[in-house]
């Protein structure tokens, strides 16, 4: 009996294949080469990402297609999200190299793990089945757990890594259990087949719904939605700052794409079941994000809560179930990358001279370094959603989608929490501009930091004023959904 093997269009996987080869090569290199070639490994890792971007750009225009028996999907959404993932990996990597160097973290494995997590994330966004989704998620997560604990001689870092690992495994278990329930109810793991099975079934089986709920919970953990957020502040604070910058953005992009795939491709018929649940999660997340940040004195913890708040907004966009909502999610994600990377880059810049991570350490920054202070305020204002910055348009579109979908209460709640959230962003600005300087702030801003800051600031500003192109791009990327 000859088994019919599914066709394999490896071209569609070429960015992932390329990155895998780079990761393996770098792994061997980091084992065999000495300390002197560490800089080279970092450069090669970055070049590898750039090369993957080139390959991604070189792929012929995306007509939605699936390969590997439907497990791997290549469509506009996947392409768009891969771009975001590459950016969300490259920028943190670019700005981390000096930090790694100073803290003795720049061994080759750091880069290898970064790239493997990127591969996992890319697999997630292309996932056409729960199987690949889970595999990608695990590859991404396991790499990141290790990265979080990378500063082995620091208790905080190892603690962060361990916490992340234990809670992450729990979440993975829940996700896997949900997946198995879905498989049990429908007999397949392919998203499209699951959707078909739901449509053709006379009634929705409770097992299926339970599975869906568990799957959503599993992914919610990855985006740090409340009440599955508790790991985030500790991990953000404990992990090396370069890793924090990375895990603040990259996994979110992947996880929200996973949400798209699961909710809209597999469970679109269950909208009535998951929409209220996501709304509840969104409200909780917004509340935790905006209230939690108020009491923080550590900038990394604060940014952790800030990212939780952003996730709340993203969830709102997701629950609308409308194209406008999906567009707003992609748009928000794209802007979030740059706001967050910019803010973390400033934390890195200002952190280098032994100034702690405390917010009060930034007192009087404006007098000594007006440009840095201005940039920090700009990112804070953008995160708070104040026009004419990108964050404002992003929030505006989410709210527009919510209102159009009739989720008026949700929109009002989110605005209230956004206003509360604005408080702590503005508090940072106030400290920067009006408090008396205690630190000398005489650090130099290296070229790579200048580049990252310039890119993020430019995007935040330009998108805030001319959002048209990015909005179009976001719309195009979600058109294949629904």
């Amino acid at each position, binding site marked *: 009996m000859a088994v019919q093997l599914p066709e394999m269009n490896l071209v569609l996987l070429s960015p992932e294949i390329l990155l895998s080869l780079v990761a393996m090569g770098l792994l061997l290199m980091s084992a065999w080469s000495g300390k002197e070639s560490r800089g080279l490994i970092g450069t090669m890792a970055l070049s590898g990402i750039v090369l993957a971007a080139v390959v991604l750009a070189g792929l012929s225009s995306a007509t939605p297609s699936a390969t590997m028996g439907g497990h791997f999907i290549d469509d506009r959404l996947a392409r768009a999200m891969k771009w975001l993932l590459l950016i969300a990996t490259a920028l943190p990597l670019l700005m981390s190299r000096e930090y790694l160097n100073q803290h003795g973290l720049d061994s080759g494995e750091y880069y290898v793990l970064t790239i493997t997590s990127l591969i996992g994330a890319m697999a997630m966004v292309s996932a056409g089945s729960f199987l690949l989704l889970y595999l990608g998620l695990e590859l991404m997560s396991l790499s990141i757990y290790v990265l979080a604990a990378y500063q082995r001689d620091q208790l905080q870092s190892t603690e962060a890594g361990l916490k992340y690992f234990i809670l992450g495994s729990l979440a993975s278990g829940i996700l896997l259990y949900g997946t198995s329930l879905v498989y049990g109810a429908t007999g397949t793991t392919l998203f499209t087949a699951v959707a078909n099975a739901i449509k053709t079934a006379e009634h929705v089986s409770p097992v299926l719904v339970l599975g869906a709920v568990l799957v959503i919970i599993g992914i919610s953990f990855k985006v740090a939605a409340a009440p599955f957020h508790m790991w985030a502040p500790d991990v953000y604070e404990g992990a090396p700052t370069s890793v924090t910058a990375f895990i603040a953005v990259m996994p979110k992009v992947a996880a929200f794409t996973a949400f798209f795939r699961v909710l809209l491709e597999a469970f679109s018929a269950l909208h009535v079941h998951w929409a209220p649940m996501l709304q509840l999660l969104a409200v909780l997340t917004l509340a935790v994000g905006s209230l939690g940040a108020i009491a923080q004195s550590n900038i990394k913890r604060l940014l952790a809560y800030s990212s939780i708040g952003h996730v709340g907004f993203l969830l709102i966009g997701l629950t609308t179930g409308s194209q406008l909502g999906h567009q707003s999610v992609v748009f928000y994600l794209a802007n979030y990358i740059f706001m967050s990377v910019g803010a973390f880059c400033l934390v890195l810049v200002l952190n280098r001279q032994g100034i702690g991570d405390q917010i009060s350490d930034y007192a009087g920054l404006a007098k000594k370094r007006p440009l840095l202070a201005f940039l920090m305020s700009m990112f804070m204002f953008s995160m708070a959603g104040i026009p004419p910055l990108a964050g404002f348009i992003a929030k505006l579109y989410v709210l527009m989608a919510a209102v159009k979908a009739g989720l008026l209460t949700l929109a009002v709640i989110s605005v209230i929490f956004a206003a509360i959230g604005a408080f702590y962003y503005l508090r940072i600005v106030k400290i920067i501009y009006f408090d008396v300087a205690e630190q000398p702030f005489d650090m130099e801003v290296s070229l790579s930091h200048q580049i990252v800051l310039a890119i993020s600031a430019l995007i935040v500003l330009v998108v805030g004023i001319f959002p*048209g192109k990015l909005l179009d791009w976001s719309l195009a990327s979600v058109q294949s959904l629904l």
Partner: protein
Amino acid sequence: MSKYLLIVLAPLFGSMIAGFFGRLLGNRLASLVTIAGMSVSALLAIITFFEIAVGNGDPVRQEVWSWIVSGEFRVSFGLLIDRLTAVMLIVVSGISTLIHIYSMGYMAEDPDQPRFFSYLSLFTFAMLMLVTGDSFLQLFFGWEGVGLASYLLIGFWFKKESACNAAIKAFLVNRVGDFGFALGIFTIYQVFHTLDYATVFRMAGTGQYPQTVDFLFWGPVHTMTLICLLLFIGAMGKSAQFILHTWLPDAMEGPTPVSALIHAATMVTAGVFMVCRASPLFELSETALTVVTVIGAITAFFAATVGLVQNDIKRVIAYSTCSQLGYMFFAAGVSAYSAAIFHLMTHAFFKALLFLSAGAVIHSMHHEQDMRKMGGLRKKIPITYTVMMIGTLALTGFPFLAGFYSKDAILEAAYAAHSTAGTFAWTLGMIGAVLTTFYSFRLIFMTFHGRPADHHSYDHAHESPWVMLGPLMVLAVGALFAGMLGESMTHLGWFKSAIFLAPGHDAMEHAHHVSAWVKWSPFLMFLIGLGMAWLLYVRMPELPGIIAGHYRATHRFLLNAWYFDRLYDRLFVQPAKLIGEGLWLTGDAKIVDGCVNGVANLCQRWAEQLRSLQTGYVYHYAFAMLIGVLVLMSLYT
């Protein structure tokens, strides 16, 4: 970049360079940069004028860039250059360039020159934006831009308290107008679902819009009347028309070149321009046109009466400006848009000339503005005297100078309109013409003739440098010939599609055929005014004092500009202050602060509680997660 775009952007570049790198460049270089930008703009504006207005070229429409395009929501910026715009371009760019040059002399001793020139160029950019826009949104953009620049420039000497107050007053009064204007634009969008001129006008012309709309609490109102009146409220604010005029005289606190450029030649005419640009809408509402006519006529008369008794040389010209703007509006009100624009153009020349000459007088008198302390200056500053005389003659309508053509065209049109409002306007306009001549020559006589009142400053009076006199002469040439050269503008159909006339609105057509006495009566008014001024201020200089003594109440009434400022103070400012104070002390300090602080404290407390949940123990976290899982499972399956 197309040359049309460069006309608009060149001043912006100049402004940005002077503004951001002013300290680096120094005073001289900063001013030269902006002048260079302006010259480019002016040169291209002249070329454009010859292409479109003289050379009979077709209107140009260009989409410059799309600002926001997403789905059906679309905002783009474009240029629309037809003959109306071409005239405005040459007025704005040309006069602005001259005033930039003049300012090099006038502001020579000011330490903040880069800032000044930057603002001046920024203003020009906004004004050009306003006149070249192809949609109401862009019009609004420019409208607010010029308002901002005006605010900045009135308060340029921000250390002077009166300047700051004047700036704030101008801003606030304009805000009232802008509120109406914005509402008008909103209504347009609501009715037509676009702000694009071409589309709006086409739909208006073919009647593709609801005839009535609900506005706020008022039941169905006539759509066009509503839109036009709201727009006109904006024009009243910007062009200092009766009721909203109070800011203009105070705006004279700014440097004189600013008064000349913004508060005489260009910005204040934006309202007139807007009404003409929106002629396809205004033509559809008789009510709105009547309101425009009446308000314009009242302003023309009212401001002229106030101008009679002012002693500050700049205030006289300011009220004169206000009055002349009234003329333009009632011209537009009787559908004589071309006459309005024609007068707008000639007025820009001679009024800028008058202001700049007044500036030269002030400059030579070491910043003395009170005419009672001047006198006999004609021997000391003959060139200034000559050009100012030309300006005055042009304003008062001396035959074959600029004002003669344009003002007469307006009065004839008002007469020929044969409507109640038209006749009303014509009557007030005629009286206004006498008053105009009177106060203009009163200014000339008090300043340049008679005996010097203050010998010290008289002895130190000196002619201004050439960098100031040069622009004056250019403007004088304009004041001499602009009327003659531009008269063809008033011919029917010169503006082509830029101006729309409803059937039956043929005042302009009839204006060319009115009887001779109507044509020559303005000249008669000129003679009467001149004679009275001569009698009172040259022949018998003690007479004005006697008259003022006799009619003390009337004099005070006029001197205080009909007590409008005091009225507004009682009616709005004081109550607003009282309400504000009340709100502040009870509403804000107690209720709002109480609530806000309460909410803030509440948030803080929640935050603390949330923080106490964040124990740092993995098993607590895992426990919380599992609770979450259980709750969600039980809720949603």
